[in-house]
């Protein structure tokens, strides 16, 4: 495949065949080698063929092979001629991340780290087939799908101030639970507030480096060594079922025979089916916000029980990295509303955007990028440049390079835990195999991913965090 280097961090896949727009790859010489090893670039090209796509089919520096769209894929579509694709959002609708700061220092919690991790394990349900504390009635679940994190706050899981520090304020009012199938609801009922498994985690971290003191302070990071908590989770079985339901109904209505991959199935933006998908997607989005809010509450409870206080445990921000949004962007010098799909990519708006909550509106939004188990995570600042060159988007994580089956042949969960312990990182998971599959060696170098984001100007480095205790789902 032809690949043209545009600058140190941007490559282009020129238009060919059925591509309607060129592909744009944010990467570096080093990361590009990984990309060539799987189908990522082919998938970027497939997305470039979808109707109504605007300017570029984009992939982020942590990109890797997905199905249909690549992971790390960003694509904007015209609201009249374009499409919406559930596969372009992903099965885990509103999979996302939040960070909570604390007033504690590493020294203060070091001797109680193990106790704290055990308590988090008791409070936060995690792993396969682990139900939430209470199985909710269908009516309550429908209320959650309608109200999102605002429901959790109303029920005592957190405070109103929490809602001021989330994308969409943790609650999309346009959600309509009637668009969500009974099957999806039955999967969601036992799962509210659960972490899940796979790459989902709840991590106690410390501030390792502050790159911009003023901005870091506004985010709530004051000193190196300060303790924070990061939660990475999504909409669980409910969201997966919504995606699957709409992939099937769009397939029934519009067919897949013309597509290179059945996972690229879509519906015209203005169709009834698209509108139904949005209503269901927003409901799943609210479910995921609620889950992360409940886990935030239990995290605070755990800190209070073990450390005696949970004062000043404030949310920095909560970001979605699997979602489609209607946003205004400047296209060829003209402001236009478009539908941006981000599948494994984070919104990275610069200062002034009305979508950013008031506390951050003048500086730009916090962008949270979780690393792999045992490596660094970052908080970045959204930029105006991202709005110009990547539809206001940047990376979402480290990005895998090694398959799970090969990871299992190469690593053992027990040794991974020992290895990390020697680096002073405690790990507790629901499964040894799960730990082996998620060891940091199977991921790209997150520092390099962030380096590309920072130098390409699509997300500016503010804080680097490193784990000290990991709860793996």
């Amino acid at each position: 495949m032809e690949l043209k280097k545009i600058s140190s961090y941007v490559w282009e896949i020129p238009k060919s065949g059925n591509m309607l727009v060129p592909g744009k790859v944010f990467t570096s010489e080093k990361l590009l080698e990984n990309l060539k090893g799987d189908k990522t670039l082919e998938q970027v090209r497939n997305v470039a063929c979808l109707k109504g796509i605007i300017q570029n089919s984009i992939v982020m520096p942590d990109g890797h092979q997905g199905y249909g769209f690549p992971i790390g894929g960003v694509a904007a579509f015209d609201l009249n001629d374009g499409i919406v694709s559930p596969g372009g959002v992903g099965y885990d609708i509103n999979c996302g991340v939040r960070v909570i700061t604390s007033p504690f220092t590493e020294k203060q919690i070091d001797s109680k780290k193990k106790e704290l991790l055990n308590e988090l394990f008791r409070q936060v349900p995690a792993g396969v087939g682990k139900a939430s504390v209470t199985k909710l009635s269908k009516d309550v679940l429908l209320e959650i799908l309608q109200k999102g994190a605002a429901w959790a706050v109303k029920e005592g899981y957190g405070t109103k101030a929490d809602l001021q520090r989330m994308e969409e304020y943790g609650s999309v009012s346009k959600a309509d639970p009637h668009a969500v199938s009974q099957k999806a609801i039955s999967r969601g009922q036992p799962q509210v507030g659960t972490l899940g498994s796979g790459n989902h985690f709840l991590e106690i971290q410390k501030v390792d480096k502050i790159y911009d003191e003023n901005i870091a302070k506004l985010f709530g990071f004051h000193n190196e060594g300060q303790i924070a908590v990061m939660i990475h989770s999504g909409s669980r079985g409910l969201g997966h079922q919504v995606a699957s339901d709409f992939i099937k109904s769009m397939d029934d209505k519009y067919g897949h025979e013309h597509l290179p991959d059945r996972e690229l199935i879509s519906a015209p933006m203005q169709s009834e089916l698209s509108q139904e998908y949005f209503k269901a997607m927003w409901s799943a989005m609210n479910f995921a916000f609620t889950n992360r809010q409940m886990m935030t509450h239990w995290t605070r409870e755990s800190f209070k029980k073990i450390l005696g206080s949970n004062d000043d445990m404030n949310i920095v921000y909560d970001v979605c990295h699997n979602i489609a949004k209607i946003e205004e962007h400047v296209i060829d010098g003209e402001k236009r509303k478009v539908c941006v799909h981000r599948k494994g990519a984070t919104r990275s708006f610069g200062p002034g955007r009305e979508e950013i909550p008031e506390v951050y509106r003048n500086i730009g939004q916090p962008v949270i990028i979780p690393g792999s188990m045992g490596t660094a995570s970052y908080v970045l600042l959204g930029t105006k440049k991202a709005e110009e060159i990547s539809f206001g988007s940047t990376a979402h994580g480290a990005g895998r390079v090694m398959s799970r089956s090969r990871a299992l042949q190469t690593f053992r969960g027990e040794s991974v835990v020992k290895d990390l312990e020697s680096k002073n990182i405690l790990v507790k998971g629901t499964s040894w195999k799960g730990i082996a599959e998620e060891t940091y060696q199977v991921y790209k170098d997150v520092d390099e991913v962030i380096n590309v984001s920072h130098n390409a100007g699509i997300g500016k480095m503010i804080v680097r965090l490193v784990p000290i205790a990991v709860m793996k789902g």
Partner: protein
Amino acid sequence: MQSTDRYKFIDHTADAKYQAYGKNLEEAFVNAAMAMNAIIIDEEKVKSKIFKTIHVTGKDLKNLLYNFLEDILVILDAEMFLLAKIKNLKIEHIDKMYMLTALLEGDVATEDYQTNEHVKAVTYNDMEIKEDKKGVSITVVVDL
């Protein structure tokens, strides 16, 4: 995710890809489900305490396979049902519709069961159902 003579796992960067085999379509469908189940839990550890008959329809064979595998995920999430065995799986083709019935044996997930990894969803990505003289082989990618 250990391969057996009924199925084998193929390298896939982020998710799980496998090939399942059978003398006929029915056996290949059973093995495709057991391969997916192997990601979630070691089947021999699950007791056969609960029995469930499922009925699945599909507009084509791939759609039938997708719906069948998805149903196993749905009952895991909704009813905490861990799968041990599949028996009496039958596939019929009537009036352009494919219909599948099967008996699932398994148990309710409790703290005693050591599970591995959750499967988020079945996908159509690279899905293949190939029939020849030797039998049937099925390729599936599931989202983890």
